[in-house]
């Protein structure tokens, strides 16, 4: 009888990154934002001319800069978790710190963007497009602030001694939340700044 060679030993077993609780939270947040994404296009279809005209007043370059900051922070946070798995605490902590700095950069850019809009007379009450713009980006900004608190905690947490499996799991949970913040911005950037521009 010929027995096929066993390859299972060379393959990693499936692993849920972080605690299951963080995934319940992420799933809930994604359901909420999914409804908001669909709702935005629904209302956009009803007032297309207004939405297209209002969208022209958004600063595309600042939106692009913020997207690059979010992507870079996610890359740094993913790298921080990988460094922790290799027991490289200094590198891990530095990557979390740089990820935090990208988050701070995002808030600074948002401050300039909001200021620019308000000076030009575009506020929450201007029209439906700007109402969605401020509410959606405001909700996302709250996520960024919470996420930065998480990253600051992980930065300190990753400085100390040896990374146990439990400690890695905590890092993975915090990192997953930050990647959610990145993911939500990727979709918001497309819907608010890019879709429908002629």
């Amino acid at each position, binding site marked *: 009888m010929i027995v096929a060679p066993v390859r299972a030993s060379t393959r990693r077993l499936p692993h849920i*990154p972080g605690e299951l609780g963080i995934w319940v939270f992420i799933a809930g947040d994604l359901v909420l934002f999914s409804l908001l994404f669909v709702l935005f296009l629904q209302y*956009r279809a009803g007032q297309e001319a207004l939405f297209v005209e209002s969208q022209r007043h958004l600063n595309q370059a600042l939106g692009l800069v913020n997207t690059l900051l979010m992507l870079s922070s996610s*890359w740094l946070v993913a790298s921080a978790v*990988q460094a922790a798995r290799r027991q490289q605490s200094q590198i891990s902590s530095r990557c979390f710190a740089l990820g935090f700095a990208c988050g701070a950069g995002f808030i600074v850019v948002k401050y300039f963007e909001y200021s620019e809009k308000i000076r030009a007379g575009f506020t929450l009450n201007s029209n439906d497009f700007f109402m969605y713009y401020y509410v959606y980006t405001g909700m996302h900004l709250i996520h960024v602030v919470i996420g930065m608190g998480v990253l600051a905690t992980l930065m300190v947490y990753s400085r100390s001694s040896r990374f146990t499996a439990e400690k890695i799991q905590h890092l993975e949970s915090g990192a997953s939340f930050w*990647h959610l913040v990145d993911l939500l911005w990727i979709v918001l950037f497309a819907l608010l700044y890019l879709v429908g521009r002629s």
Partner: protein
Amino acid sequence: MSSLIWSRTTVIWLLLVVATGLSWGMGQGVGAFDVQIVSVAIIIVTFVKVRFVIFEFMEIRGAPTWMHRVGNGWIMLISGLLITRVLIAA
């Protein structure tokens, strides 16, 4: 340190940056395509990026199969709904 910089994660980040440049370019009205077609293309590129974030950065790639299915299912459902909404508006 160099193993971190020259990693799969870095390649994914570079791909995400290129995809962002591509969708940003499409959003500037580059090309002679209909605005609805461009919008659909932007949504597709966006959800390809989202899939990279979920499967690579969030590490769902190494998670159990049911998490792959939930992730892929959510991406297909939401991108499908958004694309349908754009096409119906046309």
